């Protein structure tokens, strides 16, 4: 085995590398690609797409494009695959689904010249903007989803502009996600620091006992802990009962579905994630620094401010980065205890996948979420010189 260790090492690593490449890296790559590809028009209306690509884009396309559109729409309806393309175009301009469906149904009754019969059926076909929209959607690449995920759209002539105010949701969503994550991270670091410092300062067995009390919630399921908050925050639940009993409330109030509930439960769930890296760094600190300061007459406050706090900073940064990273992508806890206005990016990704079946938007939001996570990891490396994997 010592003769060819490299070959052996490669053979041992290969199965897992293959699995991760196939079940993780490739899927993520597919997601990134989905965010920038447009395939619905080309796959459903291939001849029309080809003809439109050859069109000069001025006024209206030539008669063959009208004819291909009428035939291919009718065929797509016949073969029950018109939903994809109509949803794709309707996403960019409301009303396109109705236009395509009406044209597809009328298809067999339409006659040449189609450049006259299509506009007679619906005047939208006489509008160059309709055709430009379809041509642009013929791909193969698109910036539609990435732009829309930041509340931008394109005019028929291809210029980038902001979407109508009533449709602008995503910038607010990203800001809310960042804001909630920031508040949660701050709360976790502030609450977690004394625990980490105590774990580092206590002697065994007390230090192990305190660490155990942090590891226990860290180990128990996020869903279990979120469910616990859901049960405790019920209108007839213990938290309301306690608040009324203490005279802080006159009557029970709605707690589930509020921003406060999201912040409380998320901070609680992520607290161990912040504590563990901080405790890891503080346990490795040399106690003689503080002893030396004490022997020179520094009081507890001065020792805290000048010795412990600066030396614990790498741990604080690592804990904060890990907490923030998990918070920006958090799904379960806000979904369980938050209202519709408290949902973060992850919830919208799930909605686009499950309810709207709009993979392009789900992928575009994932791209930005990955960028945020990557930025946090890069910042941590910049400030502490270490990666996230080595942090805990």
């Amino acid at each position, binding site marked *: *085995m010592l003769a060819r260790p*490299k070959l*052996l*090492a490669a*053979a*041992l*690593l290969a199965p*897992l*590398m293959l*699995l*991760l490449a196939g*079940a*993780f890296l*490739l*899927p*993520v790559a597919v*997601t990134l690609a*989905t965010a920038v590809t447009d395939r619905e028009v080309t796959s459903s209306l291939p001849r029309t797409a080809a003809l439109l690509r050859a069109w000069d884009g001025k006024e209206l396309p030539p008669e063959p494009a009208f004819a291909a559109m009428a035939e291919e729409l009718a065929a797509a309806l016949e073969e029950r695959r018109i939903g994809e393309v109509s949803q794709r175009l309707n996403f960019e301009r409301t009303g396109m689904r109705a236009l395509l469906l009406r044209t597809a149904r009328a298809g067999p009754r339409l006659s040449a010249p189609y450049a006259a019969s299509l506009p007679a059926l619906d005047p939208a076909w006489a509008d160059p903007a309709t055709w430009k929209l379809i041509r642009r959607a013929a791909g193969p690449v698109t910036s539609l989803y990435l732009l829309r995920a930041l509340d931008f759209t394109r005019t028929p002539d291809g210029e980038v502009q902001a979407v109508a105010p009533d449709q602008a949701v995503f910038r607010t969503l990203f800001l809310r996600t960042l804001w909630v994550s920031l508040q949660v991270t701050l709360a976790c670091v502030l*609450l977690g620091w*004394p*625990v980490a410092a*105590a*774990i580092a*300062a*206590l*002697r065994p067995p007390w230090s192990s006992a305190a660490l155990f*009390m*942090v590891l*226990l*919630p860290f*180990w*128990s*399921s996020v*869903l*279990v*802990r979120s*469910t*616990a908050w859901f*049960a*405790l925050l019920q209108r*007839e*639940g*213990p938290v309301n009962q*306690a608040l009324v009993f203490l005279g802080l409330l006159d009557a029970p109030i709605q707690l589930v579905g509020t921003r406060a509930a999201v912040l409380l439960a998320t901070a*609680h769930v992520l*607290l161990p994630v912040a504590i563990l890296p901080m405790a890891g760094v503080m346990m490795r600190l040399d106690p003689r620094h*503080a*002893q030396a300061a*004490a022997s020179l007459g520094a009081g507890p406050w001065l020792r805290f401010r000048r010795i412990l706090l600066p030396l614990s900073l790498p741990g604080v940064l690592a804990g904060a980065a890990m907490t923030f*990273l998990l918070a920006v*992508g958090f*799904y*379960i806890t806000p979904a369980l205890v938050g209202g519709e206005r408290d949902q973060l990016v992850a919830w919208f990704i*799930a909605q686009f*996948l499950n309810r709207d079946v709009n993979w392009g938007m789900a*992928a575009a939001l*994932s791209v930005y*979420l990955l960028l945020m996570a990557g930025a946090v990891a890069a910042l941590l490396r910049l400030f502490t010189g270490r990666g*996230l*994997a080595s942090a805990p």
Partner: protein
Amino acid sequence: MKGPHPLLLVAAALVLAFLLAPMLAVVVLSFAPTEVLHLPPRGLSLRWYRDFLTNDRWVLATRNSLVVGTAVMVLATLLGSMAALGLHLGRFRGRGVILALLTLPMVTPFIVTAASMFFAFSLVGLASTLPGLVLGHVVVAVPFVVISVLASLSTFDDGLLRAAASLGAPPWMAWQRVLLPRIWPGIAAGAVFAFATSLDEFVITLFLAGPGQFTLPRQMYANVREYMTPTILAASSLLFLASFLFLLATEALRKR
């Protein structure tokens, strides 16, 4: 210098109480005799535990969770331990890159991992299947195994393997008699990590599990969404107990 500042201890104790209180409250409430929850409870009953153990949906979810968790544990432990050994033996360039790659699923937002698997697995017909679900869980569980086994390998003296070889032991015998007895606690801890990760995993399950494949977390989520019964508190308490046992097991293994 005397011990830590009393103020620090008080603050730490308060935060630890906040950290553990919700779970302890749930454990207490799970013994409630009524549907409306009171703290302190008015009487004790095992009603919700009985419901958990006899209700078909909960029993099925438990069985699914155990099946998936066991499959994930076996696969992740095998692949993860092999990879850790490979990383340890091969002192090649790019080792850091490979380690970063192996631990990438830990720092990628779970929702992105889940959504990506859902995309890609639907393309090849793996979505909504048991193998697809197991594969998804293995991806997020395997980094824990790699890290755990690497940690125990880092304290292993490679000279022992050379000594075994110089005494004429073929590689497989040296591994089985010398290496394995020294690193098995790391492997076992990794296996516990993998099982626990799979048992608790929810986001990937939400996307990859088929219509009938309810695992415990998914069944709990469905229960909360539809109509919350205190059975969920019994389920939570049992999962909490499981985490407690897992933690004790890994701590015991770590001390070996």
